[in-house]
């Protein structure tokens, strides 16, 4: 069981920022560490409640898969969609190298 009391360290901020793909400036790390610690401190009040035998609610509705008949219908216009992308090539989204090698 991890320690749940209120510390949100600079290292925690750097770690979650990396997980969340956010590049933070040094000043931002300190600010967010203080603010997130304060928020977590408040909301962590619920972590000490006894919820044995209480089921989790992930969603207000009883969710079930929703299926539709497999019939073709209109789709988004390809040119309209690609026109909104930062970079396209040959009808596809263009991105920088993924594993370091040149395309």
């Amino acid at each position, binding site marked *: *069981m*991890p320690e*749940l009391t209120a510390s*949100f360290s600079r290292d*925690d*901020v750097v*770690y*979650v*920022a990396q*997980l*969340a*793909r*956010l*590049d*933070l400036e040094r000043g*931002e790390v300190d600010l*967010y560490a203080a*603010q*997130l610690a*304060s*928020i*977590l401190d*408040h*909301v*962590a*009040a*619920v*972590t000490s*409640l006894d*919820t044995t035998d*209480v*089921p*989790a*609610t*992930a*969603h*207000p*509705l009883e*969710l079930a898969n*929703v299926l*539709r008949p497999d019939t073709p219908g209109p789709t*988004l*216009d390809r040119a*309209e*969609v690609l*026109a*909104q*992308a*930062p*970079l396209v090539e040959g009808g596809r*989204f263009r*991105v*920088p*190298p*993924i*594993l*370091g090698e040149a395309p």
Partner: protein
Amino acid sequence: MSASAEARPAGAVETAAAVRSGARRARDVVAAALARIATYEGEIHCFNTVTGDAALVAANRIDAAVAAGHDPGPLAGVPIALKDNLCTRGVPTTAGSRILEGWLPPYDATVVGAVEAAGAVVVGKTNLDEFAMGSSTENSAFGPTHNPWDLNRVPGGSSGGSAAAVAAGFVPLALGSDTGGSVRQPASLCGVVGVKPTYGLVSRYGLIAFASSLDQVGPFAASVADAAALLDVVAGHDPADSTSLDVAPEPVASHLDDGVAGLRVGVISDFLVDASPSCVAAVREAAEVLAAAGAVVEEVAIPALMLGLSAYYLVAPAEASSNLARYDGVRYGLRVDGADVSRMNGRSRSAGFGPEVKRRIMLGTYVLSAGYYDAYYGQAQRVRTLVAHGFADAYERFDVLIGPTSPTVAFEIGAKTQDPLAMYLSDLYTIPTNLAGHPAMSVPFSLSAGLPVGVQVLAPALGEGPMFRAAAVIEHGADPGARGPIEPRSAGAAR
């Protein structure tokens, strides 16, 4: 009444009736709305985009339909403003964020199609806290919106632009979205009616997602009747939203005047402890109004509701961190180049998201990360159940509940921007409803030092009928000076 007061727009129901009968032209209605926007928008900043030319074209179409003997629909010619997180095909939709600046959605949200099919005319996209995360509209990348009742104060949030647009008399109707109070709290702070419908009653297709198990689109209007008319237009099953309820919704507008005789009303005592005296007084007076109209009113303690805020600030950021992963600089929105995909993602997101969005993404990522998931996110989900059980017990004895919408009236711009937690507490009384998936609405009731105070009416899932009937009675007993539209003004200025 001054000449300018007489120039205030009529209500939506009244306007639509006049347009459908040919007594008023939609073009004149829309032109008057655009003129009022041109006069005051510089001081208030409700809009990220005003679609004036398209609105006049749409209005002409409505007039042509009337002239040809067709019925353009129940909202014929009524100007409407849309929160800028509702997708509008070919019209900029920013969600208040730099990361979507300039983006033109390739499709319309289902609710946008619904209001247009009913004859309403979209005049613009309203300002909001970035990705609907906030309670003051100060988190918009495009600057804050000002409260028409006092231009130095916030309109609330996150749908502050929509609330202020109705309060300033720019439009009789607006749509917002409510994830933890983002329709009701700004409605309360701006002296207008704001409704958060039952989860699944209104389609979320084309609503830019914040926290998908909590988000719901809802109406703003200057009166309960107008809000009901708009809800009736947007409610209904949508095959494009897998969480849309497959039910035929009961129309609310046609039963507004049925009264509250015998209706069992609970006053949530837990909400009266920390609210400001004027907000508590409004609830007590509203309770008397309901009792005088024949309702059976009693206080009820539901302590589990006070756990809602903490659960919400674990659940909502968790869902947001997942939903906002899609803004990666690949398919739409801002891209800042980097040597590889990962660097490009990080730079784009850092440049595109503002501080509150980054905070919530990091908080959500943290509570979902290995080692913390069950202690935080899992526990919050179990507490969410406790909140729902608290409501369920109360609704065995009561048909509707009432309480304050917000703990305070509108606060000054800048008052809470340095303290995120203080800002979060603005939603203490609205959040439990979203966790349970229930409907609730805010009704303007009284004035406190010249600022409007709203009363919240809450109901169980699909309890919109009794909720609106109670709201109509409360509105009838309210101070008529406490609701918009008003002439926008600075603090202390005379009406």
